[in-house]
């Protein structure tokens, strides 16, 4: 059946995920003193994406499965981005009329 992933790598991934979670909290929470302003949001999501790729690649085993499975995952995200980007373009480029009464 599918490739059997060694138990050790599961454990390593868990440790990495813990570290990344702590990192996310440190980056995004002013309590930790590090305040990166608007970058903190972006970095928080970057770290979340890294965590997500770890979970998908190892825990879900995408790394060892057929390419088609990765295509399924990625196409879902792609079309969401499409909906978000085009709606954002519309909202951003709207000419907001004002009442002149």
């Amino acid at each position, binding site marked *: 059946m599918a490739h059997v992933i060694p138990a050790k790598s599961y454990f390593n991934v868990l440790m990495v995920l813990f570290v990344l979670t702590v990192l996310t909290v440190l980056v995004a929470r002013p309590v930790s003193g590090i305040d990166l302003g608007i970058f903190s949001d972006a970095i928080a999501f970057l770290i979340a994406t890294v965590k997500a790729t770890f979970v998908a690649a190892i825990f879900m085993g995408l790394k060892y499965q057929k390419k088609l499975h990765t295509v399924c995952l990625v196409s879902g995200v792609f079309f969401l981005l499409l909906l978000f980007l085009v709606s954002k373009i519309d909202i951003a480029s709207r*000419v*907001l*009329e*004002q*009442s*002149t*009464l």
Partner: protein
Amino acid sequence: MLALFYAFISQAHGRSFMPIAGTKVAQKVDSLYSFLLVISVISCVLVIGGLIYFALKYRRKTADDKTAYISHNNTLEFLWSFIPFVLFIVVFAWGWLIYRDMRSFPDDALEIHVLGKKWNWDYQYKSGKRTTAELTVPVGVPVKLIMTSQDVIHSFFIPSFRIKQDVVPGRYTALWFEAEKQGRYQIFCTEYCGDQHSAMLGTLNVVSLEEYETWLGDNPYKGLSLAEVGQKVFSQKCTVCHNVNDQRKVGPGFAGLYQKQRQFADGSQAVADENYIRDSILMPQKQVVEGYPPNGMISFQGQLAENELLGLIEYIKTLK
């Protein structure tokens, strides 16, 4: 088949079915429409003609006809992909140019505010003058309509000018035109908005500049008694939902309303006196008569001048 062919030709003259173009922009739209019609009729004749010709020419003659094993033809396939693509891009660009004109508002435009609400159009001029249903504008002057809605999405559509714009609650949208000829043009609401969506009509009255000036200045109710003012306001703003007899339309009929006992949805009762009529106009949700939907009527707060409100009350009192 002949009926269809005739229909095709009549569609080619479709422009003649369209109401006469009342602005330059509308004329540009019509020329694009003619171009589109010609292409469409040609491509339909090619495809459907080819279809019928092949179907008749290659009818099955014997039970075991041998057919040509043609799998594809690259040049032909390239041609009938590239030519439609070019045609579509030309039509897209042309459409975009005209759309540019429609969306670029001249700076010196006469600004009129349009308020769409469930099943009527209200207009307000910079001078504070308000009218309902009929919009009066001077000819030859660019007019910019700044529009919003009081409840749901409506859409302001003038077929003769080929322009349309949704009227969205919570924000302002705009539309502009420059009428070329005087006359009365039909206004529709084209975004579905409920029971009387098809009754939400208006007329655009394009008059000469002088007429417009005098019309703007004069008082529409000059020399009318209070009840007559009320009758004029009622005919413009209220007939969409209320009858002057006692028949229910969307709201109750007003015949014999004055001094009548009114039973409300929450069980309370009151006599229909002047204050009740005034409150029902300005705050309809406060006392809803039994058997009527809770948010059926919209408030007219801030849309009626004091004389119009008093006139309405007097007029309703006269209805027996």
